[in-house]
């Protein structure tokens, strides 16, 4: 279980997150929606301390880190319970697909090389890249790179995988293959927090939607409720804008 309590983040006098509380249960797929600048990516990066929150508490399966004085070792321990998939993939560019996936297992989790390799091959097969394991990131398409990114996160067997707009840097044609992989692992019961602009995907895969605006959670609930029957005016506005009421086909 992941629990965020009163997470706040300020850059100077500008407060980006104004006290966020969020609970994610095991096996949940939580999608965070919201307009640009609403703080959704910042919130996601606060979970694994890529951004250090100014205040609040992050708890992952019973291990709590106080954001006011986190301490290096605690942050490391917390990070080792999470994994992240980045908007720009951020694969280690001097390592092959296989090495990218193995890196965390060998270096951070101290798994024996053989075991790490086997595990990596398994997840690479799961994302459909068994034939690309010796390719460098520069030799892969965006969609393939992102699938390696997902494999790298999945191999760590984390408590939660954080997805930071995993398809927004991709060619429209390549979005499908990545979403299919995410959907597949979501069905296997991996806990996820996803920031995305893919509404169809959010509706289909999420079992909990969080709508953020201006650094606060405006509304949260099951997808059907948020998309079909939003309660807050701001959510209604947002949903209206992204689900067109008329067709453009002439």
């Amino acid at each position, binding site marked *: 279980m992941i629990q965020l309590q009163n997470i706040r983040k300020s850059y100077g006098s500008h407060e980006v997150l104004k006290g966020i509380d969020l609970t994610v249960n095991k096996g949940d797929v939580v999608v965070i929606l919201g307009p640009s600048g609403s703080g959704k990516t910042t919130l996601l990066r606060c979970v*694994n301390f890529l951004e250090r929150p100014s205040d609040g508490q992050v708890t992952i399966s019973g291990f709590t880190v106080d954001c006011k004085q986190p301490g290096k070792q605690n942050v490391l321990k917390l990070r080792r319970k999470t994994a992240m998939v980045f908007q720009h993939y951020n694969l280690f560019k001097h390592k092959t697909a296989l090495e990218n996936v193995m890196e965390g297992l060998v270096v951070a989790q101290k798994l024996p090389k053989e075991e790490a390799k086997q595990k990596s091959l398994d997840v690479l097969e799961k994302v459909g890249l068994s034939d690309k394991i010796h390719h460098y990131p520069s030799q892969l398409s965006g969609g393939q790179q992102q699938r390696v990114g997902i494999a790298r996160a999945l191999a760590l067997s984390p408590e939660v995988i954080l997805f930071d707009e995993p398809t927004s840097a991709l060619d429209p044609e390549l979005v499908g293959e990545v979403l299919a992989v995410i959907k597949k692992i979501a069905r296997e019961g991996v806990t996820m927090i996803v920031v995305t602009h893919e509404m169809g995907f959010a509706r289909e895969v999420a079992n909990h939607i969080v709508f953020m605006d201006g650094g606060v959670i405006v509304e949260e609930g099951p997808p059907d409720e948020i998309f079909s029957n939003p309660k807050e005016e701001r959510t209604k506005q947002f949903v209206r804008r992204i689900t067109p009421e008329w067709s453009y086909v002439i």
Partner: protein
Amino acid sequence: MTIDIPFIITCFFEIVTALPLTLVITVIPLIIGFGIGVVTALMRIYKVRFLHRIADFYVSFLRGTPVVLHVLIIYFALPLLIAKLSDQFGWGIDTASIPILVFVLTAFSLTAGAYMSEIIRSGILSVNQGQVEAAYAVGMSTRQALWRIVLPQAIGGILPNLCNLFIGFLHTSTFAFTVSQMELLGKANVVASVNLKFLEAFIAAALIYWGMTIIAERITAFLEKRVTAYNRGGIA
């Protein structure tokens, strides 16, 4: 005056006997300097309390003064310092017994460290921040991220600069002659004076330096190809 071309070849073989010494006072300072460079660059990037100011001063001062001065200052100052310390702690070191080469290597290493620091710093800063974030996200500590992800990528980017520095130091090594080390140029001077054929001797020396430079460039090109193989793209 005519040029005695066959004598250039004779000179060449005589002067080339000094090449090992020239290589020693080029390569060893660069290796030690690399170590100094990595440490000081990290101090400066991470703004390590108090130490980063010393590192800043070190780089600024040594880059801001001529190399020949470093050689002379170390040559005169280091024996004094060692004698003083030796007296204080009763080590019983006779400074006259320390080979001059040690002072030369010390001076060049310190100089190389300052230049390396800037090169390595630029290399580290050129690595995309996303690479570090990814390393953290898979659970690496800062140190692991640095050694396994950042530095290997930084080295690929700074290889041409390192080659430049090697060439620079190959030529800088001639300053060792000022404290009577018989490296290439020193040897050329001797050969020239003995035979009274200056132009021939210096041409021969120039050819040796040039040849070494070309070899260095070739090696760098080869290494660059290997180290940055991951960057070439295209479906292989």
